């Protein structure tokens, strides 16, 4: 039956994952209200998830900003508004490309490694050992990773935004001879604090989705090395899809929420 209707099987599996991730979220929130793990465990995750992801995120941001500048320049030259390229680059980076691309990169880097680590622990009975030692795997394994992802993804996103905008500026002003003054004025004019805030909020949600999905897939890994590989792949694919779909809904939601006093 699943052969005839591959879509049905896929949808059931996505719904099951979504339900599992939601339950895990509730349990993580409950764990967050209780006693947190030792500081060393937290610091380790903040280092692995935040610091170690910086190179990949910076590279992504820089090249996205630069290619965006080149592409927009080619279009805008025809209508003689090349001084707007900087504005387009910065608005696109801050609103969409920064949060989404950072999210997707982290889904690959952080999500896969969280799933592989927790998955290996669960197939080698280390998760059972944690429970046997009267420690909740949610509190010990999931909470630190979720906390690190929720708090650090916005920071990584801001870093991507900054280098993206810098890269775009470098291309525009350095190579394409756009006048610095107009470039700068237009950029400031179009860049809104609200948008930066929304970008950060969205990326926080993406971080949450990445860490939760990865932890869920890790905790529910099928036995064996193949099981761990499969779980990691599924975690990455699922969290990428979750990022792209939730991005749409979050964007609509924040647009509706925008208060009048912000221009």
């Amino acid at each position, binding site marked *: 039956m699943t052969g005839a209707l591959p879509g049905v099987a896929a949808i059931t599996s996505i719904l099951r994952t979504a339900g599992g991730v939601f339950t895990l979220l509730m349990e993580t929130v409950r764990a967050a209200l209780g006693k947190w793990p*030792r500081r060393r465990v937290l610091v380790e995750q903040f280092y692995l998830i935040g610091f170690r992801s910086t190179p990949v995120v910076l590279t992504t941001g820089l090249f996205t900003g630069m290619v965006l500048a080149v592409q927009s320049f080619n279009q805008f030259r025809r209508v003689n508004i090349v001084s707007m390229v900087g504005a387009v680059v910065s608005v696109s980076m801050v609103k969409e490309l920064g949060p989404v691309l950072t999210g997707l990169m982290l889904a690959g880097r952080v999500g896969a490694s969280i799933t592989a*680590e927790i998955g290996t*622990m669960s197939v*080698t*009975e*280390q998760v*059972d*050992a*944690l*429970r*046997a*030692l*009267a*420690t*909740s795997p949610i509190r010990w394994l999931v909470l630190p990773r979720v906390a690190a992802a929720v708090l650090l993804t916005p920071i990584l996103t801001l870093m991507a935004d900054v280098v993206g905008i810098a890269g775009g500026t470098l291309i525009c002003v350095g190579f394409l001879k756009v006048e610095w003054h107009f470039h700068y004025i237009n950029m400031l004019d179009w860049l809104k604090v609200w948008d930066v805030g929304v970008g950060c909020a969205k990326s926080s949600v993406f971080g949450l989705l990445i860490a939760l999905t990865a932890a869920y897939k890790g905790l529910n890994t099928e036995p064996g090395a193949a099981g761990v590989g499969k779980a990691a792949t599924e975690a990455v694919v699922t969290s990428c899809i979750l990022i792209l779909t939730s991005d749409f809904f979050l964007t609509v939601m924040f647009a509706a929420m925008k208060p009048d006093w912000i221009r």
Partner: protein
Amino acid sequence: MNPAPESQEAAPAAPREIPKGAPVLEIRELRKSLGGKEVLKGVNLTVRQGEALVVIGGSGCGKSVLLKHILGLFKPDSGSIHIEGEDITQMHERDLFGIRQRFGMLFQGAALFDSMTVADNVSFALDEHSKKSPAEKLEIVRKKLAIVGLPGVENKYPAELSGGMKKRVALARAIAADPHFLLYDEPTTGLDPIMSDVINELIVKLKTSLRVTSIIVTHDMASARKVADRMAMLDEGVIIYHDTPENTFASDNDIVRRFVEGKASMEQMKEIWGESAGKAQESENTRRRRRPPPPAQ
């Protein structure tokens, strides 16, 4: 004018009211299916305070699964497990943590945390559930590692240890917080004969001096003979036999006798040797007879 209390307070384990011999662990009609196959088909087992129960049974018959049920790591499909009067099968995972603090478990595959050093592994329960100072904890870690014959490995990672060493570190971790109950899943598998005997002595000592109640799953009959107060055999998902070790080793129950003597059944012989199984057995005997006599002197 009673001089007793002082010496009682000095006892290392928490005072316990339950007299020796009272049932502290009662498993009733425990059933569990895993991967579409019924592994436990109505297990009944009672363990009394301070005794060492050895569980034997063929490979894959569900001994490890049974131990995991006792800690609530698996939820049974039906049946009950009462620990000191409380039915743990009805409990939520959150409420099980209190029960689990009374337990130490040695996993069959050691299950050491491989991102932590040996010292952190051993002191895990102390770090999590006690208010001891780092110096006190280090002292305990050293002592427990010395007991299992592994002094000086504190700063190694599990990946740097041999299989038998991992097993012993895992044992040190299980006993670190002086639990009331100890569940050993094949404690001597993978150890050399001398180390096996050391572990057997340790199991006996924990039982006699700290009055730990223990369940030991093992395939090692020498170990069973040494540590068991009672033996139970799990076969086809039920406890088919339980008795004292003396009676078990002298049992005339065919399955039990073949198991404790380590003899393949006639059908198994036929699988290997074909229809000539009888002849093969004979040839084995003749070979033995023809073996050259040991040289004089």
